[in-house]
């Protein structure tokens, strides 16, 4: 049976959520809980690493949409990286690339947050 897992780590002060498996209406609540926990810890700079994500439905996309407003109000963002082409197509179909930033790899996504921070300092 299709499984979903999410691993939470911190790199350079940025939360990295590594999603694995199948994100649908059954597994979305688990991901929602994880994201809520991150936000409860006042961490708003988030990279969603989708390298191991095999499938996403609108229920999964809805989790990102449900949190992004609050995260951006707090000066943070969710940025995506390493998205498999077939998964990216679903994001594309729903217009996500106009609203979210996608990076080819995790380093790029992390660096974009560091870039933001140094821009603010200068």
């Amino acid at each position, binding site marked *: *049976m*299709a499984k979903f897992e999410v691993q939470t780590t911190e790199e350079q002060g940025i939360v990295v959520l590594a999603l694995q498996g*199948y994100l*649908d*209406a*059954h597994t979305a609540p688990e991901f929602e809980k994880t994201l809520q926990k991150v936000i409860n810890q006042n961490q708003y700079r988030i990279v969603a690493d989708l390298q191991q994500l095999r*499938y996403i*439905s*609108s*229920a999964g*996309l*809805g989790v990102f*949409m*449900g949190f*992004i*407003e609050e995260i951006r109000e707090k000066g943070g963002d969710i940025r995506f990286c390493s998205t498999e082409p*077939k998964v990216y*197509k*679903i994001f594309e*179909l*729903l*217009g*996500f690339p*106009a*609203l979210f930033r996608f990076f080819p790899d995790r380093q790029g996504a992390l660096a974009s947050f560091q870039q933001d921070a140094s821009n603010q300092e200068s």
Partner: protein
Amino acid sequence: MREPIGQKAPANRKVYRLELPAASENLALIREFVGGIAENMGFDEETVINIELAVDEACTNVVRHAYNNTTPPERARIRIAVRPYSDRIEITIADNGKGFDPRKLPSPDLVRYVRQMRRGGLGIYLMQKLMDRVYFRIQPGVRNEVRLVKYLSAPGNTTDRASESARSNSKKTGK
């Protein structure tokens, strides 16, 4: 020649049926069931995923909205019927829950919709984007039905990549 959509199937027509409790834990099983049939019919991998996703969206709507807490669990069912035709697959997702008015659903300007950070309502939009035809037949409490149709090779259908196969060539010339 294309057979008319939704026509009464001849007695020898294959129909694959699956009936399950309307629970999210069954979504993966439903995707595998429908995806397996589509794959055997010769749909390419990308289209198989699109079909699975459209079916998932239809079933998610049933799981989330068709029944309420007072429905006895044994009555909260979801029924899937898959009919392979020579030129297309037809999938019917049915429930006997409260139904909905498809005319009142948002036909969203997606970018604006997503910009408003709204959740939900994306499922039907996705179904319509991913499939060639989507039909609703709503009889609240009796039978609500979503019928999804995908052609093996639709003219001008950019999501279909099977045009190189002998199968789709025979479609183009097989009038």
